[in-house]
């Protein structure tokens, strides 16, 4: 059945070369943990991506119950966490995943740094990697406000004041982030929009660029 359906599509669209290109791509010996166990450090990039996928999926499902409104945000999180079956698990995946993705990204960056993989011709991918890093920090910062509890609120007050301390543009930055004079309804609404639309879109674009460059340039050579 499956084979027949596959053949039917393949006959018309010739899809075999597309995945064959990936499947037949040889993994060099020096990045294969089966050859040298220490090569597991090359897994951190993939693990970062794996957790990013978990973040995106769990975030999509959380937003089925979450509402970004100051009267209801906390209540909706409490509801999904206490009344909805497995809600506590899905929120847990997103909550712990948010920290774990930073850890994985950090380990991946260490690997790139100590193997010197940022050197010519891969400078651009280091730059894209740094952009991904800042987008991730932005996701963590904006997401943290969403439960709208005491920790969330005051962590964001402090975070925005740090932004305000930037010379010259600081006050504008603060106003842009809060969306008004106080930390309130407007702040929560824009943090939500940034968290679920703007930054994930930027992240996907950057990840695509990151992976295409890796494919074009190949993994950097052995030490």
């Amino acid at each position, binding site marked *: 059945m499956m084979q027949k359906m596959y053949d039917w599509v393949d006959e018309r669209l010739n899809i075999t070369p597309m995945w064959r290109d990936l499947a037949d791509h040889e993994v060099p010996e020096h990045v294969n943990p089966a050859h040298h166990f220490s090569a597991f450090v090359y897994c951190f990039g993939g693990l970062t991506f794996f957790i990013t996928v978990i973040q995106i*999926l769990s975030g999509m499902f959380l937003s089925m*119950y979450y509402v970004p409104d100051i009267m*209801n945000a906390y209540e*909706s999180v409490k509801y999904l966490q206490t009344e909805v*079956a*497995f*809600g506590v*698990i*899905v929120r847990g*995946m997103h909550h712990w995943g948010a920290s774990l993705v930073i850890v994985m990204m950090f380990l991946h960056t260490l690997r790139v740094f100590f193997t010197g993989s940022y050197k010519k011709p891969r400078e651009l991918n280091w730059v894209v990697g740094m952009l991904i890093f800042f987008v991730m920090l932005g996701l963590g910062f904006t997401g943290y406000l969403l439960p709208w509890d005491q920790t969330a609120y005051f962590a964001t007050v402090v975070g925005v004041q740090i932004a305000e301390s930037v010379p010259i543009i600081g006050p504008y930055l603060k106003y842009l982030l809060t969306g008004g004079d106080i930390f309130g309804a407007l702040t929560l609404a824009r943090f939500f929009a940034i968290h679920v639309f703007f930054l994930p879109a930027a992240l996907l674009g950057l990840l695509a660029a990151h992976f295409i460059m890796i494919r074009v340039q190949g993994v950097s050579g052995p030490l």
Partner: protein
Amino acid sequence: MSKKEISRRTFLNYALMGTGGFLAAGMITPMVRMAIDPILKPKASGSEVAVGSVDDFGPEPKKVDFKINVVDGWHKAESTNVAWVRKLEDGSILALSPICKHLGCTVNFNDPSGKPNEYFCPCHEGRYAINGEVILNTPPTASLDMYKVTVKEGKVFLGEKEKNPRGGVKG
């Protein structure tokens, strides 16, 4: 007995698909279970609301508004329900829901645009007889739902909606 050999390629394929499937299932199961929770949750049984005493009602359907508590996720609110209540020939109480069984508009008794002694739906001219029986060859496919009626110490209490067992009538 000869053992069937499996090739290295097949074995690796299975191992890979098994591991991948396990990882994917571990990720997806909680999320899907969370998403479909509303259809698996047991329905909260509604409370019964007093709408008057038995003597308030006669053979002529009377419209009553009554408040019910609605639990909508984290949001709790009062909402108003409507019932058309009448006393049947045997003295029992019939309380009909005015929600049309065609596509859910609100019906009205003795509506100026309808016929006398009938419920009339303004949306597609659905009609029902006095006990909610759908008039055949009008759009609705079932008779008007009824509220569960309990009479305690002369007072009428309305509960959940139930199907009206009365069939359609010619009109």
